[in-house]
């Protein structure tokens, strides 16, 4: 296990380097920050001064070399736009995004698991159809549309929650629901189908016919399936983390990483975009590794190592 993790971590470093190369070069192909930093009336002279000061006059490869060297010294660069260290800019936003992600995950669990189990138990009945239709709609709605509809209904009309911003627990509710809607819906569907599969297995039928408490059996299997479903959804959610938070944070004026990255791209704030991408990629890699390890613990048949025989 230890060797496996070590190997995966080494591979992850290669993956991260690949990600870094892509983001570094595509960013620089996609435009120049000078046009954002200087007012429209700026003279060519000023443009030259800035280009030199930002080191943008060097060749791309040289710039990348410098950047890599600095990273190994723990320096992720300075934000052109905010004119302060990138790490500071990011860590200021990070708690908000983590908070939002955690709560949306919580929402996923609170809604997704009971609804999924319930739907499987009531399979074929009207209540099952209702849950499934809600789940499908949850998966089918564009995120920003869902967010705006929630704002109009729950914030403007019913005045139950604030429309935007951070501060109290109430602020978290609508954005968390919006962000978690897709994963909650996915959880319901995954859990329902895996529960149905288990429930149709012979031994369950036998067990129930022998008079064993169905509830006990259901809960036992529900738990195991739920954990598997959660892990799958966790993987999905991490993969879509940035895309989701970019939109949700914009709709709800949430001061997190998603909005930062949208702005930083618009401003060609190279260092910030690079650092955020590395951060997100690292989270992705680590969570996936954890998910794989957890999978193997829950379901020992899924072995981490595949032998090379036959």
């Amino acid at each position, binding site marked *: 296990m230890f*060797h496996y993790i*070590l*190997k995966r971590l080494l591979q992850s470093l290669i993956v991260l380097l690949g990600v870094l190369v892509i983001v570094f070069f595509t960013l620089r192909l996609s435009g120049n920050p000078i046009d954002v930093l200087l007012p429209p009336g700026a003279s060519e002279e000023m443009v030259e001064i800035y280009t030199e000061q930002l080191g943008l006059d060097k060749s791309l490869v040289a710039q990348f070399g410098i950047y890599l060297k600095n990273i190994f010294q723990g320096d992720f660069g300075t934000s052109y736009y905010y004119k302060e260290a990138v790490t500071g800019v990011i860590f200021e936003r990070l708690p908000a995004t983590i908070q939002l992600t955690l709560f949306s995950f919580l929402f996923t669990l609170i809604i997704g698991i009971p609804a999924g189990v319930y739907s499987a138990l009531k399979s074929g009945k009207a209540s099952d159809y209702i849950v499934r239709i809600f789940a499908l709609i949850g998966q089918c709605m564009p995120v920003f549309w869902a967010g705006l509809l929630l704002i109009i209904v729950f914030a403007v009309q019913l005045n139950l929650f604030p429309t935007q911003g951070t501060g109290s627990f109430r602020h978290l509710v609508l954005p968390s629901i919006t962000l978690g809607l897709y994963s909650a819906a996915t959880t319901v569907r995954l859990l329902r189908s895996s529960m149905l599969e288990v429930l149709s297995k012979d031994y369950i039928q036998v067990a129930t016919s022998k008079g064993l408490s169905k509830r006990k059996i259901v809960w036992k299997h529900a738990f195991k399936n739920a954990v598997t479903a959660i892990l799958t959804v966790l993987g999905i959610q991490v993969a879509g983390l940035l895309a989701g938070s970019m939109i949700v944070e914009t709709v709800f004026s949430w001061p997190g990483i998603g909005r930062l990255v949208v702005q930083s791209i618009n401003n060609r704030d190279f260092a910030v975009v690079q650092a955020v991408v590395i951060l997100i990629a690292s989270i992705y890699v680590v969570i996936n590794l954890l998910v794989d390890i957890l999978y193997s613990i829950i379901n020992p048949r899924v072995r981490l190592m595949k*032998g*090379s*025989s036959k």
Partner: protein
Amino acid sequence: MTVHPILEVSDVKKYFVMKNGLKKDVIKAVDRISFSLEAGKTLGIVGESGSGKSTLGRAIVQLLHDIEGEVLLNGKSIIGLKRKELQKLREDIQVVFQDPYASLDPKQKIKKIIAEPLKIHKKPDREKSIHEIIELVGLPVEFLERYPHELSGGQRQRIGIARALALSPSLILFDEAVSALDVSVQAQIINLIKKLQNQLKLTYLFITHDLSVLRQVADEVIVIYRGKLVEKGKVEEIIDQPVHPYTKLLVSAIPEIGKPIVLDEAGEEEKVINQMFEEGEDGCPFYSRCEIRKSICLKKFPEISKLSETHDYYCHGISNKKEI
């Protein structure tokens, strides 16, 4: 008149390297096995599941890579062939697999399955050959338009045999080809196999764990335990006068037809064996289960002992022939 052997196998080895983190474990699936087989005869390869008999079969028919030793077919080496030569070789050696359910592509009609080898090797008159072949294995022509899942197990295995026959090979490997079938069906297929051998002058390698099947089909037998050849002889010699303690064990279990023999009480004994392998010592793998083991058995695998012209065994425990 001495018949020239069609297949000569000498000192064949197939090792698997398992990477376990930084450590490497070597698994000797086939270890220094030699034998030869005359044309028109059947050689039975017998052993428990996991004994390496299937690996040996696959090593001989070149379905595995990186094989050490020598395999001669009609006097020509077939080890380490290039792609084109290997492709050519496939015409000469065919395989019938154990599971008639899994060995046929569920998405293809029988016609396509049988035609495929002809197509690959660009044989003319395919339509005609297909008809001939399906009749040869005793199935009506209408079956050509069916899918595998519409057939019974026995019928499917007939298709498997038909596919193997399509290219008129000189050697066919049967890998547990009847063990997945019901006893009555098993008999039919065995009869078919024997009939075809006579009719077409075929040479067979027949892998099985089932000695009653073995007695029906084989002329000669080799017994494999954990990758090592432990006893070799004519089928009567092996079944009626087994010498090696392992062979004896196999033979004594005959009544339980169809069931793999599970005598290995793993645990402690496994550990001893594994240790032995790890230390790179070349002892007798049967040591832990052997009733007549000696200390030398741990250190060195025994040399060949000859009981008769045709009957060989490998055991330290048997000091003279009289003891048998």
